[in-house]
């Protein structure tokens, strides 16, 4: 299957500052792809180069099998992190304007807008000025602007910020529906549990460079050797080779150093009389843990990217 987006060795400098260096990834139809990284890692700059907002200083970007064109822009829906709407205009004319700029005929845009407004409970507010809407409502309006023209490639940067749990679930469902419809979705977010729940594959960028790239499941399995989950009685925090011990709801999560295996911990516990084990399992780390681990490991020094097919 040909990738919808193919980014190869992308680089970008702002003056002497290297914002992105040698970033590569591919995104396919029918997948939600996570673009992750700490603040200032170069995620948004990569997205902007992908969208032809910035010209890259090196590397290539291929969208729908070639260079970006004006016609291809109509097939892309983009929800930027730095977002806003015309505050002094009505909600309906604002969204209609943005939809027609994406190549929609006004009558079609009007019909589809009505459906979207009803779906997001904004229909009653369509005549209001944008500035009269709550932050959450404005956020939903911007998601409508991203999806109204039925794009084939959807890029959402922090799509859940400003949303309450009900609307977060709604947006998650909508993104999942888009994926099932065969759309390619690139999602950039700091909410790792959302990435874990939704994304098939991810790329983790740190200090402008790729440090992790591949399938979420494979990445988690690869990092699994470094932690165990325990349920039992006693203090498990003082075991040798444990970097961090966290206790939550009666269960322990032990993060191990690189030279310690779960088998070593199991043996260490077996000889102790002061503890009682009720459950012992090799822990699959959360993406949150992996993220922190990889970013801290990389530190200020650029590291080799780890790729998981």
């Amino acid at each position, binding site marked *: 299957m040909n990738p919808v987006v193919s980014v190869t060795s992308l680089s970008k400098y702002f003056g002497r500052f290297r914002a992105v260096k040698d970033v590569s990834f591919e995104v396919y139809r029918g997948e939600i792809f996570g673009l992750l990284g700490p603040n200032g890692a170069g995620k948004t700059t990569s997205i902007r180069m992908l969208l032809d907002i910035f010209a890259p200083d090196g590397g290539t970007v291929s969208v729908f099998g070639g260079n970006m064109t004006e016609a291809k822009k109509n097939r892309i829906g983009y929800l930027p992190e730095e*977002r806003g709407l015309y505050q002094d205009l009505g909600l309906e004319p604002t969204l209609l304007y943005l939809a027609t700029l994406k190549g929609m005929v006004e009558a079609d845009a009007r019909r589809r807008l009505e459906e979207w407004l009803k779906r997001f409970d904004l229909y009653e507010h369509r005549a209001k000025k944008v500035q009269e809407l709550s932050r959450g409502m404005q956020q939903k309006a911007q998601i409508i*602007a991203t999806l109204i023209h039925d794009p084939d490639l959807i890029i959402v940067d922090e799509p859940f910020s400003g949303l309450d749990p009900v609307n977060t679930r709604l947006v998650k469902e909508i993104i999942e529906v888009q994926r099932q419809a065969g759309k390619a979705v690139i999602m950039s977010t700091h909410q790792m549990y959302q990435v874990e729940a939704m994304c098939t594959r991810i790329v983790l960028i740190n200090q402008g460079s790729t440090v992790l790239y591949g399938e979420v499941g494979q990445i988690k399995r690869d990092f699994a050797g470094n932690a165990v989950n325990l349920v039992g009685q006693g203090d498990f925090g003082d075991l040798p080779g444990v970097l961090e011990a966290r206790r939550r709801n009666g269960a322990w999560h032990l993060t191990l150093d690189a030279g310690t295996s779960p088998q070593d911990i199991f043996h260490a516990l077996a000889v102790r009389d002061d503890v009682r084990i009720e459950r012992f399992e090799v822990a699959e780390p959360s993406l949150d843990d992996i993220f922190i681990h990889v970013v801290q490991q990389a530190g200020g020094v650029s590291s080799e990217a780890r790729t998981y097919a």
Partner: protein
Amino acid sequence: MRRLWLVAKHEYLKRVRQKSFLLLVIGIPVLIFGVGGISVMVTIGSGDGRPVGYVDRAGVLHPGLLTELAAKARSFTEFCAYGDEMDATTALEAGEIQAFYIVPEAYLTDGQLRLTYGERAPRESITQDFRVFLRGSLVARQPAEVRPVLADGFSLTVRSGDGRRELAYGQGIGFLVPFIATFFLYFAVMSAGGYLLQAVTDEKENRTMEILTTSVSPLQLMSGKALGLMGVSLTQILAWVGALVVAAVVGARFFEPLRALTVPWTMLGLAVLFFVPTFALIAGLMTTIGAAVTELQQAQQISGIINLLFVIPMFFVALIFSQPDSPFLVVLTLLPTSAFLTVLFRWSLTAIPAWQIVVSWLSLTCTALGSVWLAARVFRLGMLRYGQRLRLRTILEGLRRPRMVRKEVINENA
């Protein structure tokens, strides 16, 4: 192209639906005609309806002419003759007349007249009417074949050295056009410049920029905005011109001079020809400023200086009227920012050589296109720098390294 029109339509509707626009379109004519109307009413109200007497000791006046003059001009003053000054004084004291003129015996040699009035000096229009009466009477004494020439003076036609341009003095309202154009330039174009500044800084401030730039190119966005706001300005101008036409038609029913007005179509055509690129130039410069700075207030301060460049000719009105062909004014004609007003002023006063008009228009149009291109490029550089001012060095670097060239290099390397 469709997107450009969409942006233009959006900008146009957004501005014309604002209350401030309606206030400007309706308010300015209302203000002007209101003040004008009050002045006229005060003038008319302050007038004394009683006739004005005269004593013709020189025997030059023809009372029969008065009937003819009164038929021509509805508001012509009523004059009545008195045999001597005593009779006129008696009538004045009795309140039958408001004033009387004495035409002394020596009038034909020294041209001196005398006016005596009661409580208040008569209006200026009465003296004007008496001048018409007196001049008409003097002309009537001459042979019929020379009367029109004596009454109307001469008609001067000035022709340029290359023979391509002619100017006829004393015809129509041509001399008014530059002043009206200046007025429009100030109120309509400058307000559009303000809208443009606001349009660009607004989208940076409310973060709509990034969504827009994934739908339209910077050049489409900038051109669309300029086009839409030019439409706003033209709507303003048409509304004001419409108000002027209505005022002229209504006014002509009451004021004789308005009936004699003719419209200088050639000059109006020239005004439109120069207005379009001048507007594009202003739009380009304003947008460049708006894209380079972070706040509207900063942009307005810089744009104030730019505005001055466009109204430079107003500082040299005295020179334009006294020496409309001076080399300095030729320079102003060829300078893109001052071309519009200088050409219009000089057109009404002298025969501008055709080459100057052609070169001026071409240089203005090329500069305008360049300014829109510059605006699009600076806009692209500055559009996502939220809260950051663009440095001149960054702008120059951005201009030196055109985007397409860089893209080709990247593709070749790949």
